[in-house]
């Protein structure tokens, strides 16, 4: 009995000695901050690019816009659909070349939706400028969807943007972080487009080739219409539900605005004719009026408040999507 007690005591001594030497469970810790706080880092962007161009390439190969589903939508889908119609009618017509190689990525930061992911492609060809692409994610369950693109205006430069360490901050369209606020800047620019080169807002924006071409086309078509006792009218309709603004690193803003431009050409006592190249997009019986509808996309840089620079369109495309008799 005594031996058992002694043995048990010795064993207990050993176990107790060990128990005293077992380390304590570590205390809970707080995780450090994320190194890359952007909602999309480069690996995710690469996945999005790959998935987007896989879908786009498949649709391009089939010339079928119905294949543009998850990754391509909005204005881009309408634009591509029009290009498919033109190409089906004339195989010589090329689709807009959008390089899948990117030279810059502006990743969204913040925790809210929708989120905007912007990328700038490499230069497509020698005579073309890089393309600014805009993806939008409506919710955490939705894919980033390519909804807008525009070639950069020759000579324009994009401002420095926050990297993926912090991500890009989204701005509300009425944000007073910049002057004028994004929506006001777009509205004033549309007034300038409507009013022409002599408009009161002409001095409020930097020079850009987009409006120069628009004004030149308007002059020519207006002259033709007048010769036929007709008229030519451009109508600009913004889509602020699909307009987004993001903050630049310098304190300014980039605004991405899709526009619908309708150009109505009317003649008197005559019948308008539609060029053969546009006929695949035409619909209806043409009489004395034809309306060309364009899906335009603008990227405007608003400099930071206090800067002497003017808000300037840095990328824009003017793309015909429909020709109607009405």
């Amino acid at each position, binding site marked *: 009995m005594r031996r058992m007690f002694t043995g048990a005591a010795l064993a207990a001594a050993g176990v107790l*000695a060990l128990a005293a030497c077992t*380390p304590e469970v570590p205390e809970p810790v707080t995780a450090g901050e994320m190194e890359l706080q952007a909602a999309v880092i480069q690996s995710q962007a690469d996945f999005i690019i790959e998935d987007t161009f896989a879908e786009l390439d498949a649709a391009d190969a089939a010339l079928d816009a119905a294949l543009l589903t998850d990754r391509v939508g909005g204005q881009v889908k309408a634009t591509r659909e029009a290009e498919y119609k033109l190409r089906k009618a004339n195989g010589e017509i090329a689709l807009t070349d959008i390089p899948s190689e990117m030279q810059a990525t502006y990743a969204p930061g913040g925790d809210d939706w929708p989120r905007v992911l912007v990328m700038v492609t490499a230069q497509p060809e020698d005579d073309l400028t890089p393309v600014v692409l805009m993806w939008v994610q409506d919710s955490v369950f939705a894919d980033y969807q390519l909804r807008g693109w525009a070639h950069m205006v020759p000579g324009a430069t994009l401002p420095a943007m926050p990297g993926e360490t912090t991500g890009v901050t989204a701005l509300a369209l009425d944000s007073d972080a910049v002057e004028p606020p994004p929506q006001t800047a777009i509205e004033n620019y549309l007034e300038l487009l409507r009013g022409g080169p002599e408009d009161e807002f002409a001095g409020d924006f930097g020079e850009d080739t987009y409006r120069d071409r628009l004004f030149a086309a308007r002059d020519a078509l207006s002259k033709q219409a007048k010769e036929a006792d007709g008229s030519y009218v451009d109508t600009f309709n913004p889509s602020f539900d699909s307009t987004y603004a993001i903050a630049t690193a310098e304190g300014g803003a980039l605004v991405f605005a899709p526009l619908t431009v309708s150009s109505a050409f009317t003649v008197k006592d005559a019948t308008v004719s539609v060029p053969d190249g546009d006929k695949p997009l035409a619909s209806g019986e043409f009489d004395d009026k034809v309306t060309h509808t364009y899906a335009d996309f603008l990227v405007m840089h608003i400099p930071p408040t206090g800067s002497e620079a003017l808000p300037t369109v840095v990328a824009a495309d003017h793309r015909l999507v429909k020709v109607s008799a009405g």
Partner: protein
Amino acid sequence: MRLRTMALVAGALGIVVLIVGLVAQAQRPEDTVEAVAQVDTAVVVVPADMVAFALESDGRVAVDGSGTLEAFTARPSDLDAWLDDKESTYLTGLPTWEELTTDVAEPAPEPSPTASPSPSADPSPEPSASAEPEGEEFEQLLDTSDDLWRDNWTGHGRVSVGAAQVPVGLDLVVVSADGSPLTSAELRLDRDINDAWVMPLIVWGAILSAVGLVALLLLLIDVRPLQARGEEWLAHRQRIGTGDSGAKPGSRRARRMEGAAVPAVDLPDEPDAAVAPGADADAEAAKDGPEGEAMDEPDAGDGSDADEDEAAAGEAVDPYAPRTEDEEGGR
């Protein structure tokens, strides 16, 4: 007697120390601990803080389930939004080394639709007569966008992710691809056991026990006869009590006891005039070596100083060297 008693005490102490050491060795805690929690949801979340906690102990998180399991990392705010409509299990802490605590988060209640009083008066025209489905149907959780995931690991039946693989600040989430509930979550951590004392304890216990064992053997076995024989042999070797008064003078033993005779060198004083040539001759002799011709062949004709010096030096250095008759006569 006193030494033997101390050895016995040391032996007893050694046995105690040895037992404690062996018990400690046998019961030594593992360097790696695995805390397991049972789960019953299709989603297991390891928050960023828990990942950081595991990282401090070089830990790994493993989740078991059926079928294909996917593990992702995501920003916490994005993951919270994704989990908003899902039931999920969060790993929340490790209060003890063996206990992994969890918390089940219920999906947020959906907004209540209009309370339309539209009870269906008509029973279903096609009552279902189908039997229960063979396999249980689960909601697919991964059929939405993958854009929020940053890193991805896939496993079948089990997916394991090291905390070091998860970027700092990101949450880790494990989801079953088919929506079936996961079964368990495991947190494996390394810990530093302070067991450096166990092996020395065993060694010292063994040494002390051996000492005590020797003392015990000496206590039990009568070694006095052996001791007496040893003492006799020693006395015989030392010729104690034999009347031996020492070595005889001149015997080899006496010379050995006196030690080796060291020959005394008595260098004569040399005249100044003979120093230089004599030194040269010595130098030449040194070059030729001890067996050189200048040393071995007496030069009868030239009568140089070197020969004289050699003869003088030879006489002084080696008094036992054999001499010729001429040399004897010259003296």
